[in-house]
């Protein structure tokens, strides 16, 4: 029993409240006296605010208050918590309401609080702003060129930072001596994360104590509390309690501190009422962070046999009009250090310019830097294969890091080493599922018939379980904190277990997977475990849930506490059995005397004895209770092979996904059902980037794809069933052997699809296409290469 529960497909423990509608998401919370806020957002992408007249809005019946940035001039701007690449000299971050100037469409400039949201919206229309529009630039490369509009005085040429990794001269030399060099301009378009629940915040201020309770849609409530108190308001951290209620997805966009999360508490203090703000979807699209948006040039050098010798990457990363909380870290640490992929590439150099433009803020979106890096690497490998007329599978195998190479040091990871892997094994399995040899025959036949059938590969790795504090905290990385996680485990008198964790959960099923680990270790029923999280009152500090780190870091903290509890249970059990501690073992939920399994005390009996404390061994404290702060020695490195098969309809440019195969290795698996669900969802998002999704700004900085009418979030009928399998290569990094599964799909899928479409169209001489591969674009490319079909 003890081992069976870990690794089994048990139904999720969080689901009953979700499938009945009983779960309380942010907008479902209603406090007595609740007032409703609505925010006036800039219609201009770049403008000075000359004046704001709120008189008419204030006079509207039902309005409780109208405020502008000047009312909060004493509140600090939001902090930038990841100052990579020397950002500290020119960081520009949002204020809770902008005062003088806006640098993107959607920046908040005034707020109305009213008795109901409808009235608040009516009042917004009565606020008069005298704007002085300024010239606009939305493209990260153009923004750095002479003559471009300047967004911030402290950032000449709109360059927020310049960051490099690797040895440029060594790479140049290697490129020079390579048999072939392929150059490619690669765009990684901007995406909108779009969790189905937009963002929201409720704040209640109690004047008597000076304390705030803030409910917010956050993936990292402890970090939010820290940033709000220590950086924005300058008040003791203990004066704020942050609660993330049920969260409807995040995908990165809910990691960050946003102006509204500080504005609501400020309003509650001013008005003496609890205040709620809930984003509409249109508002979400302009005011919540976006992801990706890289303009990249690569040069990849290889030997004639396919051995890749060098990779040089130059990237302009669009960071938006102001910096979101960890924006600079995404295109640097989480991108540049990932560029070796699954391959032994001896020479890598990457330069990244982080650029301000008149667009919405860009920060982590599912995968966060790693999808962008994987896209570059997996496209590069295919470009080499095409140039050498080699099978892309063969080129991959030729360059794979081999099982005996681990731990593998890719140099650019600044001391960390890839933990474990067998990349060929996952590739072999995926090829077997595809029946690769047969596919190439089918493809040849299809080409004879004038059909465009293609296959694409992505033999990705990712870096997750992002942690070691001592690594992320290295001088120059710019991360202003640590990255450990924490857990407290208590076995109550009744034998029921309460776990409190500093991690957060917003769809990943941690309540279930953590329960499985506890049940497995203590030999109790899953139902006897309660996992508490997401409230800074009553949970230990944690850095939050992102970067596929909650299992590989947060759950390992739980596991380590369980080991300490088991040790104490053994000591107490031995005492109860009148045996020496060396003579007992903990097994299947019992402490028993070695060789005499009947001489046993159950964990429940021991927990009861520990709690009652009538008879404890000399010096033992009552209760089975332990807290762990776990800071792992390394990240973890999942990997796998994704294969996509597409057919392109040349008459319309439409792309049909005929098959999608994914073989992932995320190390040991606690609940395969949950892992498969994570992979499905990740693939859907990754495929969607390749084919449909793109956030597009016009030259005036207006978001053209400003609603779900224009931004193509995929629907059920966009996909075939995904075909999944796994290999299991445990990580030696942590005792659970788990690597993390939240982002693999998103990281792997995008290049697999693009590689497939390029393969399909390769008879036309097409070597590269930029995403999204919409029908119009593909049709046009085919027209150009065939002079009309």
């Amino acid at each position, binding site marked *: 029993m003890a081992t069976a529960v870990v690794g089994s497909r048990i139904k999720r423990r969080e689901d009953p409240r979700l499938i009945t509608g009983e779960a309380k998401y942010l907008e479902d919370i209603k406090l007595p006296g609740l007032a409703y806020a609505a925010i006036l957002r800039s219609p201009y992408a770049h403008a000075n605010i000359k004046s704001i007249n709120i008189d008419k809005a204030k006079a509207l019946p039902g309005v409780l208050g109208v405020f502008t940035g000047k009312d909060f001039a004493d509140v600090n701007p939001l902090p930038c918590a990841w100052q990579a690449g020397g950002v500290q000299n020119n960081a520009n971050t949002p204020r809770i309401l902008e005062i003088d100037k806006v640098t993107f469409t959607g920046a908040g400039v005034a707020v109305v609080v009213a008795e109901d949201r409808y009235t608040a*919206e009516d009042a917004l229309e009565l606020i008069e702003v005298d704007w002085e529009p300024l010239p606009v630039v939305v493209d990260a490369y153009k923004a750095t060129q002479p003559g471009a509009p300047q967004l911030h005085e402290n950032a000449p040429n709109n360059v927020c930072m310049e960051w490099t990794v690797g040895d440029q001269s060594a790479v140049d030399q290697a490129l020079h001596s390579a048999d072939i060099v392929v150059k490619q301009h690669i765009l990684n378009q901007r995406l909108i994360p779009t969790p189905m629940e937009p963002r929201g915040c409720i704040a209640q201020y109690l004047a008597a104590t000076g304390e705030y309770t803030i409910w917010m849609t956050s993936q990292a409530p402890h970090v939010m509390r820290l940033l709000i108190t220590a950086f924005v308001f300058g008040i003791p951290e203990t004066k704020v309690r942050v609660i993330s209620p049920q969260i409807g997805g995040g995908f990165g966009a809910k990691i960050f501190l946003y102006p509204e999360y500080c504005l609501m508490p400020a309003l509650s203090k001013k008005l003496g009422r609890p205040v709620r703000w809930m984003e509409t979807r249109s508002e979400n699209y302009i005011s919540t962070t976006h992801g990706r948006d890289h303009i990249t040039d690569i040069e990849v050098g290889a030997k004639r046999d396919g051995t890749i010798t060098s990779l040089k990457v130059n990237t302009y990363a669009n960071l938006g009009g102001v910096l979101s909380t960890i924006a600079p870290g995404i295109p640097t640490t989480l991108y540049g250090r990932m560029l070796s992929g699954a391959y032994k590439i001896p020479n890598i150099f990457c330069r990244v310019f982080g650029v301000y433009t008149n667009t919405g803020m860009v920060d982590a979106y599912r995968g966060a830097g790693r999808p962008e890096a994987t896209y570059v690497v997996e496209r590069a490998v295919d470009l080499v294969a095409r140039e050498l007329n080699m099978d892309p599978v063969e080129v991959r195998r030729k360059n794979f890091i081999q099982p005996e190479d681990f731990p593998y040091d890719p140099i650019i990871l600044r001391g960390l080493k890839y933990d474990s892997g067998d990349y060929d094994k996952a590739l072999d399995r995926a090829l077997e599922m595809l029946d690769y040899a047969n596919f190439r025959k089918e493809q040849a036949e299809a080409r004879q018939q004038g059909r465009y059938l293609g296959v694409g590969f992505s033999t990705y790795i990712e870096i997750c379980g992002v942690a070691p504090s001592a690594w992320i905290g290295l001088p120059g990385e710019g991360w202003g904190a640590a990255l450990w996680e924490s857990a407290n485990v208590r076995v109550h008198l009744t034998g029921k277990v309460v776990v409190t964790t500093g991690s957060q959960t917003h769809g990943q099923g941690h309540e279930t997977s953590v329960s499985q680990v506890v049940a497995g270790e203590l030999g109790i029923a899953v139902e006897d475990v309660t996992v508490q999280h997401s409230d800074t009152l009553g949970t230990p500090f944690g850095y939050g849930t992102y970067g596929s780190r909650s299992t590989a870091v947060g759950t390992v903290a739980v596991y380590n506490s369980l080991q300490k509890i088991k040790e104490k249970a053994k000591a107490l059990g031995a005492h109860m059995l009148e045996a020496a501690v060396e003579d007992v073992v903990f097994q299947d939920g019992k402490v028993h005397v070695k060789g005499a399994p009947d001489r046993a005390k159950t964990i429940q009996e021991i927990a009861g004895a520990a709690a009652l404390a009538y008879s404890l061994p000399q010096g033992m404290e009552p209760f089975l209770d332990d807290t762990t702060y776990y800071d792992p020695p390394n990240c973890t490195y999942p990997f796998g092979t994704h294969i996509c098969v597409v057919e392109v309809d040349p*008459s*319309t440019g439409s792309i049909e996904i005929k098959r999608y195969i994914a073989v992932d290795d995320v190390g040991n698996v606690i609940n395969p059902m949950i892992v498969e669900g994570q992979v499905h969802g990740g693939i859907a998002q990754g495929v969607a980037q390749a084919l449909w999704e793109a956030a597009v700004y016009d030259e005036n900085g207006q978001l*053209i794809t400003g609603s779900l009418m224009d*931004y*193509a*979030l995929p629907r059920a009928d966009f996909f075939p069933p995904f075909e999944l399998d796994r290999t299991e290569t445990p990580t030696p990094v942590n005792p659970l052997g788990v690597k993390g599964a939240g982002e693999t799909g998103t990281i792997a899928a995008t290049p697999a699809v693009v590689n497939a479409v390029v393969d399909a169209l390769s008879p036309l001489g097409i070597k590269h296409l930029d995403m999204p591969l919409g029908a*119009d674009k593909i*049709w046009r490319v085919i027209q150009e290469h065939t002079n009309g079909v």
Partner: protein
Amino acid sequence: MYPTEIDYHRASSIAEAIELLSQNDDAKLLAGGHSLIPAMKLRLAQPGLLIDISHLEELKSIFVSGDKISIGALATHAQIAASADVQSYAPALASAAGIVGDQQVRNWGTIGGNLAHADPASDPPTVVLAYDGVIHIQGQSGSRSVNAQDFFVDLFATALEPGEIITRIELSNSSSAKSAYVKLSHPASRYAVVGVCAVLEMNGSTCTSARVAVGGATMKAVRSPGAESVLTGSSLDDSALNAAAAAVKSDIEEFLIGDMSYPEDYRQAMAGVYLKRAVHAALGS
């Protein structure tokens, strides 16, 4: 998400609805509301009075009268898609109604509301036009009928005068014809980037009469006389279809609309491709 203040009145007769509509400049008729309410939520539409006609039973029925099928303006897309009479008399309308929006939208959106809204990317106008439908209209000065050809005037503009209401849509019996509507959907909105409806009378393998209408690509649903004349008398072979595709592209030239994702030239080209597909679908080939 939050409409402006409105007054609401539930009409108990067509006459009352027309009366109210005539008396209030800022009044709007509300049927299924599936075009109007979304616009109100974004405050793009700010009517002062909504006249809810959705309870006027006489506008909901679908019936056959002689060689015509009469569809009440309040018939929902779902109702039309499921109607055996529509499936028999105007099969492409039934199938088009079955792919409007999604199941929730089809349950409540009405054909009358849809035609009155005249969204160029919507499916029913194209089909009603290809079937040579007649729009029956009632106003303060009485009733009149407008051919679909004359009904769609421009982008979101119809021949409806202020104070008028669509009561019924009448189509001739096309059960002997081969017809089909096909569309290229926008991946986000699901509206038609291009929609083509072909209605073909056949004598053996020869097409004796063809009606072709295009929407999505154009500012309003438009017929393609060029394609119709190429197809009529042909055996609908590849050369006829290629010529018809060329003709449709030329006929819609002056009406083309486009956007960033689907520019005009793409939509124009797709009108040709989808014309061929519509003919093949109509013939079941």
